[in-house]
């Protein structure tokens, strides 16, 4: 398991937040799923924005 701290990412369009620690089980992303491990074709579940248009944020 990676020792790297979990990070939080946010959709630039709608503000949806992806927290690596919590994952998004409803979207098939188990807790602990790292951003880098999410497929490039994944889109924001709220608004459809592509993964490339997410920013890493501090909460």
């Amino acid at each position, binding site marked *: 398991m990676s020792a790297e701290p979990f990070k939080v990412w946010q959709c630039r369009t709608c503000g949806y937040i992806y927290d690596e620690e919590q994952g998004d089980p409803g979207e098939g992303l188990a807790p602990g799923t790292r951003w880098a491990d999410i497929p490039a074709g994944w889109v924001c579940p709220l608004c459809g*924005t592509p993964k490339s248009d997410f920013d890493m944020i501090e909460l």
Partner: protein
Amino acid sequence: MTISTEIANTIVDPTAYADGDRVDQAFAQLRREAPLEVAQPDGFDPFWVVTRHADILEVERQNELFHNGDRATVITTIEADKKVREMMGGSPHLVRSLVQMDNPDHFAYRKITQGSLLPQNLKALEARIREIARGFIDRMAEHGDRCDFARDVAFLYPLHVIMEVLGVPESDEPRMLKLTQELFGNADPDLNRTGKSITDAGEGVDSIQSVVMDFMMYFNAITEDRRAKPRDDLASLIANGKINGEPMGHLEAMSYYIIAATAGHDTTSSTTAGALWALAENPDQFARVKADPSLIPGLIEESIRWVTPVKHFMRTATADAELAGKKIAKGDWMMLSYPSGNRDEAVFDDPFSFKVDRTPNKHVAFGYGAHICLGQHLARMEMRVLWEELFARLDSVELDGTPTRMTANFVCGPKSVPIRFKMH
């Protein structure tokens, strides 16, 4: 298959939305028999009716292929469209807000306020919003055991929140509510400016235009004030917002205020009123949330799906395209029917039942794609806080008469929700 004139007329008829069942049945029939076809109601140009959840997402996702601003963004008669274009120098829009914009303007204008409406920045408002919610619940308790939840609570609480966020003084809230109801309730004689049914398209446009002018006069003064003395409010962001280094245009600034001051509360009010209506009709669902407040987020999403306060937006194809096997031609007008998408049997089990534990609940009530509702996080937070506070005190609720809905086909919801309740 083409859409019959009867069904076509129903899906644009404000009284069908007031009835509720009539429009639900029309869209259910379309989803079964003609989920993506052209309708031409009497007096309207033809348009595609996009009824399925998946097709709505597909159109909203492709912002360059399906524009907002090229034609009217709300279903409009031929006569009304002609009148608006005569008034607006050829433009089909009386205002130019984010709703009427496409990129690059849409992105540039949205950026001005988007940051302040993201969840991490809204956190700072939660304590104040809770205080406001408690105040309205205290006032509800003062009514005794009966009130009209729509008029006494749901219309006023989100109004107060957005006006504080916007920076409008409390003394002007009744005026903002009246103007909002006159705008969205233009077809409703109980709410519109004329006090009667409007059957003439020209008269309808005049009525809306006079409301828009009143809004503009009001917000013109706010702009001048905030440019001179900026504050920590949304009005100051709009007044001082720059597009490509220049102050935003007058029409665009006025339109920005208008959308914040109208859609910023009316939709949340409708959803809140519709939620309590649904809970009163479904005591098992009320009991579940009462026993387990962790269901409140589920209640909120289901209420938003259930009410779907924005009934449609129109899009225009910028090029020939194919959608779900149909050939869409450049210039075609398309109605995205959100209530239909949110009752789509292919996505929602038992869609005509109100279930606070519905999972998943990927409704399209906020839209999808670049135009997704800017205020969605504020709306959810307002509702969460209200329900947390109300469920802590509300022991029971039942209807105390027959609720009614607004007569409107664009942004609308309950007009009256009389209830009897017990509160401690």
